[in-house]
């Protein structure tokens, strides 16, 4: 009971259990069977399932995505991994033109049950090409599903659900979540795709967060509670299809929306959520929605710059207070703790 597992271990366990349950599941990706095992998420699988089902691959992301797709067409359930989302971009053709379309364009005759794991980097100088958060790109494409778990519990259940799903699912992990532990049941379970989770209930404002930003939102909500502000935090969990009803239900109660996202605000998931809420629930809205996401420029490498790139809990709390007309603007939460902000916790020693 109350077994604690890190997010990365939960990913590993979901993969392990899915492979045990279903012979057609296999995992392939650069470094999958190597000694580091994709940040620990694939460790031990090679020993248990053998080199046929746990495979390294050539540095051919585009073709290998096609290979995964082709194998899925005839009944396999591939999981293909990218250690950074940025590398998956060379496979956009296979994901967008092919994987997303084969079911529709062949009139339902083809099915593409595959999972594409991608990891978002942050900090320690990940820089412009190792830190991109492009969930909106994939969410824009009908035929793809996009999942972004926040907790270890959901990482396990959502990955299991993604593997069971008969469609291409883009499964996005934030690198800063990998080491965070949570209560994770030992038995196999799924968390349904398309369902958000209310992390804490509140009545003054709804804060919708994705992935790591859901945790920042939760921290902001705790701070706001001390200030007498009741914030409801929703962990979106699935980006496409996203859980419109859970968000609208919350908005009907609070009348205020803040959306936090790990990606850029412009043309992003936060924009889609804000637009949908305004279109569908305008009558309940008491103040203009606020998006808290990345600024409109690439991520720099130097910690002196990147420390100022990512919005954090203090910024979320500040925006909520402004929205509610609170005069206090002290940003105590984000006050410099005297060390760099480019690591998730002091135990993180780089380089990835």
């Amino acid at each position, binding site marked *: 009971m109350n077994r604690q597992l890190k997010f990365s271990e939960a990913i590993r366990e979901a993969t392990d259990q899915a492979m045990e349950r279903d012979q057609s599941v*296999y995992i392939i990706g650069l470094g999958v069977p190597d000694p580091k095992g994709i940040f620990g998420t694939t460790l031990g699988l090679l020993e248990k399932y053998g080199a*046929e*089902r746990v495979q390294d*691959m*050539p540095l*051919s992301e*585009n*073709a*290998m*995505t*096609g*290979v*995964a*797709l*082709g*194998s*899925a*067409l*005839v*009944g*396999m359930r591939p999981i293909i991994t990218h250690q950074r989302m940025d590398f998956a971009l060379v496979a956009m*053709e*296979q994901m967008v*033109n*092919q994987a997303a379309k*084969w*079911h*529709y*364009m*062949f*009139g*339902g*005759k*083809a*099915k*593409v*049950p595959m999972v594409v794991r991608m990891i978002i980097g942050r900090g320690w100088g990940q820089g412009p090409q190792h830190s991109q958060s492009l969930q909106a790109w994939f969410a824009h494409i*009908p*035929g793809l*599903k996009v999942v972004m778990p926040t907790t270890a519990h959901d990482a396990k259940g959502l990955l299991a659900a993604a593997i069971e799903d*008969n*469609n291409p699912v883009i499964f996005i992990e934030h690198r800063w979540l990998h080491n965070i532990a949570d209560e994770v049941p030992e038995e196999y379970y799924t968390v349904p795709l398309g369902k958000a989770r209310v992390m804490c209930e509140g009545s003054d404002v709804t804060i919708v967060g994705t992935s790591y930003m859901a945790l920042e939102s939760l921290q902001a909500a705790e701070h706001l509670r001390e200030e007498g502000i009741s914030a409801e935090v929703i962990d979106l969990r699935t980006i496409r299809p996203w859980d419109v009803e859970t968000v609208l239900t919350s908005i009907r109660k609070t009348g205020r929306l803040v959306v936090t996202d790990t990606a850029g605000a412009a043309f992003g998931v936060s924009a889609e959520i804000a637009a949908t809420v305004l279109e569908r629930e305008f009558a309940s809205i008491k103040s203009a929605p606020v998006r808290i996401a990345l600024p409109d420029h690439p991520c720099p490498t130097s910690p002196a710059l990147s420390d100022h790139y990512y919005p954090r809990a203090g910024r979320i709390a500040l925006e909520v207070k402004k929205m509610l007309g609170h005069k206090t603007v002290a940003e105590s939460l984000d006050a410099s703790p005297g060390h760099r902000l480019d690591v998730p916790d002091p135990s993180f020693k780089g380089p990835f």
Partner: protein
Amino acid sequence: MPQQLDSQLRFKLYKEMLRIRIVENAIAEYYGEQEMRCPVHLSIGQEAAEAGACAALEKWDYVLSGHRSHGHYLAKGGNLKAMMAEIYGKATGCAGGKGGSMHLVDIEAGFLGAAPIVGSTIPIAAGVAFAAQMRNEDRVVMVFLGDGATETGAFYESVNFASLKNLPIVFLVENNFYSVYSPMNVRQKGDNRIVDIARAHGMEAHQADGNDLDGVYRLCSQAVTRARTGGGPSVLELITYRWREHCGPAYDNDIGYRTEAEFLSWKERDPVAAYERKLIDDGVAAQHEMDLIGSDLKQEVDAAIAYAKQSPWPNLDTLSSQVYAN
């Protein structure tokens, strides 16, 4: 195992090749009615490569293709009526009207699908072969591509992977010298580049006359047998020529990218006419037998077009369905 190339099989191959010719000619003939409202890429002139290659496969083997796929679909046993209905955008089409000419599919016949993004189905086919290998199935995959597709990264990546894993696949390149209007010499260097790429990856590769039906069948049979018996993948480059424009029903030798003289020299090498002469010379068939087959096929094709025309449009509720599989 592929059959011996006896008289019976040769006549069957001829019929298959002729059927593709008659279907493609019919599409060209009816296209002007503006009822086939999708791009069509006709393979008139290339039928020997298509019929000969697919005849080397078993029914349970798989084929994937690109934009010019009618011949591959038919030669693999794809349903003609469903293909015509698909081109006409009808509910009875093989993809329910969602795909059109560029997205033919017939799973039962082993034609897994075609897609017009040049090069894209090459790795997908490799993945199908990869699955067959992982599951230890007696199954060979053949993927059709053109000379242009051998310039894509997907081709190199797929050839590398297929060779690395010794996949049961045949990469069948129909080299017709033109990518739309762009000739080989603005795209590739050297006459043996395509087979050299394969050989550089440690793969069996051959270049051959794509208009020689018997030769195509023999070469493909060897490659298919090799793949089936664990001998690994092959690249086969079949030299051929498309008679009509890249996309559409017309001849376009007058617009300046190739010459009428070049076209006529290839028309002299018409694979259908050449094979008819051969069958007569070898005593396999008489002219009147072939004429009879031709008129039977014409009736079949006319009936398929009538079926397509009479078929209903797709129901509007299919517009937004099948985005996701259950």
